[in-house]
C-alpha cells in the first residue's frame, strides 16, 4: 500500500488548484468568445426583427446600345412636306444603325418631343395637322413601312430581343404640319428623339 506524505498531499492539492485555474481561464475565454458570437448574430437579427426592411437585390448585367447617326438637319420645309431621316432627306430605310453592345439581349424603345422654337411650337401627334407634325419609324421585316408612331407621351417599341452584338437598321419619316401659322417668324425649331434600351424579358 502506497503512503502519501504530507508533502506529497500538498503537491497534489497544488496541482489540482493549478489545473482548476487553467480550466477556469479556458472557460472565461470560451465564454467571451461565445458571447461575442452571440452579440455578432443577435444585434443584426434583433434590428431586423424590430424594424421594417426593404431588401434590394441587383442583377449585374450590362445593357448598352450605340446608334450611328445622332443628328438630323431637316432644313426648310413646306406645308405637308415629307422628309426622311437620311443624309439627303430622301427615303433611306437603313440609314441609322443600333448595335447592342451590352451583355444581354435588349429591347429598344423610342420617344419623341414637340418641336420648339420660333413663334409657334409644333406638337407631335399621330397625324400632321395645323401646327402639328407626325413622326413614324420603320419596323423589322417591313423596313419600307413606316408604321411605328413616335409619341411624346410614352415610349414605344422600336425593336425587341436584339441579341448581343446584333444590329438594327432603322429610319424615320417626318411629315410637316398641313398648315402653318401665318404669324410664325420661320425661326429655327428643334426637337429630339430618345432611344432607351432595357433588358429583354
Amino acid at each position, binding site marked *: 500500500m502506497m503512503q502519501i506524505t504530507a508533502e506529497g498531499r500538498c503537491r497534489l492539492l497544488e496541482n489540482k488548484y493549478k489545473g482548476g485555474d487553467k480550466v477556469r*481561464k479556458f472557460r*472565461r*475565454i470560451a465564454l*467571451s*468568445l461565445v458571447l*461575442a*458570437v452571440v*452579440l*455578432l448574430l443577435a*444585434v*443584426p437579427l434583433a434590428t*431586423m*426583427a424590430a*424594424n*421594417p*426592411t*426593404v*431588401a*434590394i*437585390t*441587383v*442583377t*449585374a*448585367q*450590362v*445593357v*448598352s*446600345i*450605340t*446608334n450611328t*447617326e*445622332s*443628328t*438630323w438637319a431637316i432644313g426648310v420645309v413646306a406645308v405637308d412636306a415629307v422628309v426622311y431621316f437620311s443624309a439627303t432627306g430622301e427615303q433611306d430605310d437603313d440609314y*441609322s444603325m443600333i*448595335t447592342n*453592345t*451590352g*451583355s*444581354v439581349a435588349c*429591347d429598344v*424603345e423610342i420617344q419623341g418631343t414637340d418641336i420648339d422654337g420660333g413663334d409657334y411650337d409644333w406638337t407631335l401627334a399621330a397625324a400632321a395637322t395645323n401646327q402639328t407634325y407626325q413622326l413614324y419609324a420603320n419596323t423589322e421585316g417591313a423596313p419600307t413601312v413606316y408604321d411605328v408612331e413616335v409619341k411624346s407621351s*410614352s*415610349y414605344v*417599341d422600336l425593336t*425587341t430581343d436584339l441579341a448581343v452584338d446584333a444590329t438594327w437598321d432603322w429610319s424615320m419619316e417626318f411629315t410637316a404640319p398641313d398648315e402653318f401659322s401665318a404669324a410664325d417668324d420661320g425661326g429655327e425649331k428643334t*426637337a*429630339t*428623339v*430618345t*432611344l*432607351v*434600351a*432595357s*433588358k429583354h*424579358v
Partner: protein
Amino acid sequence: MKKKILIGVLVVALAAAGYLIAASHYLVYDYFRLYVPELDPNEGVGIWESEVGVLGNPGGANSRFLTFLNGKDADRTFYITLQSPNPDKLPLGYEPLPLEYYDWFTLPDEGIPVKAGGYCRAKITVEVPCDTDYLDKNAVVKVQGVGFDPSGYAQLGAASIWYIVVTATEE
C-alpha cells in the same frame, strides 16, 4: 490580469470588426465591382444593373446606386427618371407600378455630367410609407438614365427594370 484584459479587448475588437465587415459588405461589393472589365464602355450609353428586385415592408427604406456608362463618343449629362413599362411585356402576375406610388422613389434631381468614356453612379432610394395600401402586388417600374448630348438629335438611354413586392409580413 493584464492578459485577461488583453484577451477581452481582442475578442471585442474581432467581434466589432466582423460585424462592421458583415454590415458593410454591400460597400465592399460596390467598391470591387467598379473595376470589372465590362465597365469599359466604347460608345453609346449603358447601365450596369439590368434588373433590380425590391422586397419590402411598409415603413422600410433602402438605397441602391445604379451605374450609368457613357461611351467614348461624347460628353453627356445623365437625367434619371422613372418610366412605366409596357404592360404587354411584363412577366405573368406583374403590373406596372401605378403612378401614385412613384413618390416612393427618390432620384437625383439634377442632371449628372459625365465625360466621354466615363460613368456615373446615381443613388436611388426606395421608401415605403407606413400606411401604404399597395400590398402583396407584383409591380414593375423602369429606372432609366438618358445621356443627353447637346449636339445630338437622337439621344440614347438605358434602363434597369425594378420588380417590387411590398408585404405586411416582415422578412
